[in-house]
């Protein structure tokens, strides 16, 4: 599966603004029966264990969908919340991402494609 994330209004957003974009999926031979999820989320990085918060979640393709369902563009739209803002500290970093996850087959890893963006005033 090939996937790309487009965000036509750039990668910097103010709280309260609308984030719009689309995910283009192109299934490859052998991708039948694999699920694909889309999420918009904040995630912590740094020394602490990772935490995340999801503000938008959608299953683009589930395991039982026909292969044709996986092909094409999937637009999405979500209002950016007031908190948390993007932060780059010493022990903690808070980053925002649009994430596409292709669920791996039994015994194999998931494939994750991230498009980072910034939330700040």
């Amino acid at each position, binding site marked *: 599966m090939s996937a790309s994330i487009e965000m036509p209004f750039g990668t910097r957003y103010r709280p309260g603004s609308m984030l719009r974009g689309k995910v283009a999926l192109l299934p490859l031979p052998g991708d039948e029966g694999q699920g694909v999820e889309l999420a918009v989320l904040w*995630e912590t990085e*740094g020394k602490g*264990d990772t935490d995340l918060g999801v503000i938008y979640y959608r299953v683009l393709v589930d395991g039982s969908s026909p292969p044709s369902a996986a092909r094409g563009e999937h637009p999405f739209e979500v209002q950016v919340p007031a908190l*948390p803002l993007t932060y780059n500290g010493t022990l*903690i970093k808070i980053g925002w991402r649009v994430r596409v996850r292709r669920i791996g087959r039994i015994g194999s890893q*998931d494939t994750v494609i991230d498009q980072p963006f910034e939330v700040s*005033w």
Partner: protein
Amino acid sequence: MAEGRATPVGIIVTVAFALPFIIVGLAAAYFGYQSHELLTVPLGLVFVGAGVAQIVRVLRRTRSAEARAAAIASHQSATLRDVLPPTNVDYRTATRTNFTALEIYGRVLGVAPLPPIRTRPGVSLPIALPIRDEASGIGTFVVGSIFFVGGLSMGIVAVFSSAGGGALMSGAFALVGALVLIFFFKKRMARLKLPHVELSTEPVFLGEPFRVHIIQVGPARITRLRVDLSCKERVTFTVGTDTRHEENEVFNQELLDDPGETLRAGERWPHDLHVTLPATCPASFKSKHNAIAWTLRVRAEILNWPDYDEHYELRALPKPVGLQ
């Protein structure tokens, strides 16, 4: 990355590990019930619960981290919808700019990754802050009592049965218990002298002035009173089977260092502090393993009484650009 999805092998291993707990627990509960040994029944059920919890935990992890977080967020917003603070205004269309952080963030406070702070109305300013660790310490008291009473009674038995080694060991237990109890009672006594800590507003805006009142009530012979405001990053991380904590101070400001005062019963000793947090400092944040915490540290040295040293957490939030 967050905790990954459970693999089929992981699920099989977990179930294989948990099943003996469930079987042994069920057997213990059944035979305990049959033989009227009723203490065995709850013990068996604890084993069953531990096994079932392991299986439920691993089965939940068959979904992606995002799917699990989305389910939690959906549940939280449904739970909190009816109990949130007043409405938040749309600052972009508003005709005034002097909104408080509570007016701007309103409903967001219940669902955003922020520390939950249960304020109450103040006496001289609108908001009274609670101490960060408000727990009564009853657990400390129980543990200390068990060690002390248990150690003491076993020591007495050991002395009368001429078991020197046992008496020494029991004495050590009793000593640990006594130290824990002394710590508990010192903390409880110190808290009897805590001042009122009140704010003009909570949450506060970064870059905006606000007032802090520290009101010490007598009787107390304070020989030094200090108040500091700090912002710290706090993280929790796992190394092997250990859980470790680390913190980094981002900002610290001394607000007060007073040489003290002798107060009669009922006498009030107020301090009115004017504070502005730097606009460039980070906003409050709290998630399971990571936090950015703004706290007021209030400590006093008291003559003939245990000193107090307590933290009061507050939420500092960024002010929207449209209102600056």
